[in-house]
């Protein structure tokens, strides 16, 4: 009976009813059956979004859109090119490196894949890399977008689970770099196996020149993370500062943006905000219902019946999340599943920060996993290839990503050490 709400939810999901409406309808049905006062619906929808920390979500969306409109991605790619372009299979390394830099500005994997992919996929094609390989590299590399701080999913997890967003941001830094390095190692071996060529080392002069051109974009993550760590401003405030900074740099320093571009960017970011936040508002009703029904405890009992070992539990949850992540959007999955699993793993003595970072990495991988991976769709769209073609090229990257996921899962200092260093 208590799990009825989950059953209804799955039926509605698979009827392709928008996730936000599905959450609302499933909750409504259960409330009518149980004769609970319906006013809770409007109360929870309001209180679910009436939150200053959550305001960081639209700000980071806007900051990413603003940076992309300001042509900052191109400067980042040029800088990455001078750094790693000379390694065998160079352009793949450039794509990974540029994605890592861009991840420090944007908080979303989709934005990362779109920004870097739209430059790198055509460039890789021109240099003779296949379309499916270029698309796969960019989709896999884009996953670091929401792992390296700032990160929109981490803000949402932090607010829902009452976990420090700053600690989560720090927790994502090392795993994000690990993923980048692992992808570059894989790209190197693929390049050797397929005999991709090398480019000439461009020299320190060139590095210095491109660095100067992009330095204002590259110090942005430093401003955000440094400001939050130093207690200068909150995560939400750092989002607003990122937007103003991006606007200033785009308009007056790089001069790549015009005033009349701004309304378009604002509308675009607002729409993305609406997509995300509607789910958060109706999920608040759902969260209320599963809490009064003690659904997390019941799920915990199911897991406990299977294992007493936190490592095995973590593996089970990872596999479950990987499966969910393949057919569901990252943020939606996070909003629905985090409140269910967080109490479960806390009972097993897992650190909520560590769990949060692992969940975000996990769901970010889901975005590059067929059949439903948003980053794959973005990359396919840019490369003009089918999902089938990219699926064949992406799997070595997925294996590497999942290997890093399990490494991070079981080596907790990867997510907690930096935070401890800063006193979290």
């Amino acid at each position, binding site marked *: 009976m208590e799990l009825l709400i989950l059953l209804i939810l799955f039926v*509605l999901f698979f009827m392709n009813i928008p996730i936000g409406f599905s959450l609302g309808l499933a909750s409504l049905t259960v409330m009518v059956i149980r004769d609970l006062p319906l006013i809770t619906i409007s109360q929870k929808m309001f209180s679910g979004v009436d939150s200053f920390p959550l305001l960081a979500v639209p700000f980071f969306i806007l900051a990413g859109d603003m940076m992309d409109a300001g042509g900052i991605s191109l400067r980042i790619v040029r800088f990455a090119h001078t750094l790693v372009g000379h390694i065998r299979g160079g352009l793949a390394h450039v794509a990974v490196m540029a994605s890592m830099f861009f991840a420090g500005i944007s908080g979303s994997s989709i934005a990362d894949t779109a920004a870097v992919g739209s430059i790198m996929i055509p460039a890789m094609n021109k240099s003779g890399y296949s379309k499916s390989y270029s698309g796969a590299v960019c989709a896999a590399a884009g996953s670091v977008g929401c792992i390296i701080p700032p990160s929109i999913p981490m803000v949402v997890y932090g607010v829902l689970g009452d976990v420090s967003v700053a600690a989560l941001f720090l927790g994502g830094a090392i795993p994000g770099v690990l993923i980048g390095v692992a992808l570059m190692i894989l790209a190197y071996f693929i390049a050797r196996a397929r005999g991709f060529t090398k480019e000439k080392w461009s020299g320190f002069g060139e590095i210095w020149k491109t660095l100067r051109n992009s330095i204002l974009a590259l110090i942005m993550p430093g401003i955000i993370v440094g400001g939050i760590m130093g207690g200068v401003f909150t995560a939400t405030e750092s989002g607003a500062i990122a937007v103003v900074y991006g606007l200033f740099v785009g308009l007056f320093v790089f001069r790549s943006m015009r005033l009349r571009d701004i309304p378009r960017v604002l509308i675009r970011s607002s729409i993305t905000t609406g997509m995300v936040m509607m789910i958060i508002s109706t999920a608040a009703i759902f969260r209320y219902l599963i809490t009064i029904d003690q659904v997390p405890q019941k799920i915990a009992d199911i897991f406990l019946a299977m294992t007493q070992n936190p490592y095995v539990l973590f593996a089970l949850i990872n596999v479950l999340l990987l499966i969910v992540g393949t057919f569901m959007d990252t943020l939606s999955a996070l909003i629905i599943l985090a409140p269910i699993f967080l109490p479960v793993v806390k009972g097993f003595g897992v650190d909520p920060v560590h769990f949060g970072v692992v969940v975000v990495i996990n769901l970010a991988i889901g975005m590059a996993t067929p059949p439903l991976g948003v980053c794959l769709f973005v990359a396919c769209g840019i490369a003009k290839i089918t999902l089938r073609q990219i699926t064949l090229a992406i799997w070595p990257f997925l294996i590497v990503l999942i290997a890093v996921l399990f490494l991070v899962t079981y080596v907790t200092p990867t997510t907690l050490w930096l935070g401890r260093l800063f006193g979290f």
Partner: protein
Amino acid sequence: MDRAMRILEKAMEYLVASIMFFLVTIVFIQVLLRYVLQTSLPWTEEMARYLFVWLVFIATSVCVKKEAHLGIDVIVVRFSPKVQRHLYTLSLVLSLIFSIVVVYKGYDLLARSGDQISPMLHVPMSFVYIIIPISYMVICLVLLWQISRSVKQESPPSEEGQE
């Protein structure tokens, strides 16, 4: 009718864009005041929160119009086009039922708030809550329009979420 819908959509788009602009401005000013002038206004955070609520609810209705809300179509795409169209209509009708409840209960929340005043800004809370029934009223209208189009067997409007 189609024309009216387009005008409504444009109007809401500019409204959310303006709110977004104000949000950034308010929060930026909050930081600026704290560090440059060493003072703070007590109401900036509350104002930002309430504007954010407005942004969320209005943007939700824009997304309904654009059919930009995220769904899971892995199962549905395996059905015949005819079944898909019926399921699409059904999903609109179910969404409409939920939206009607939200309008009704949103109005209840508004009515119950009475002359409750917000702690910092001292504005009536009803002024904040009113966006719930209003935005979901718009959603109901949009859904009714989409249902009528779908029943008339026109292909579902295919404007994508992002321009």
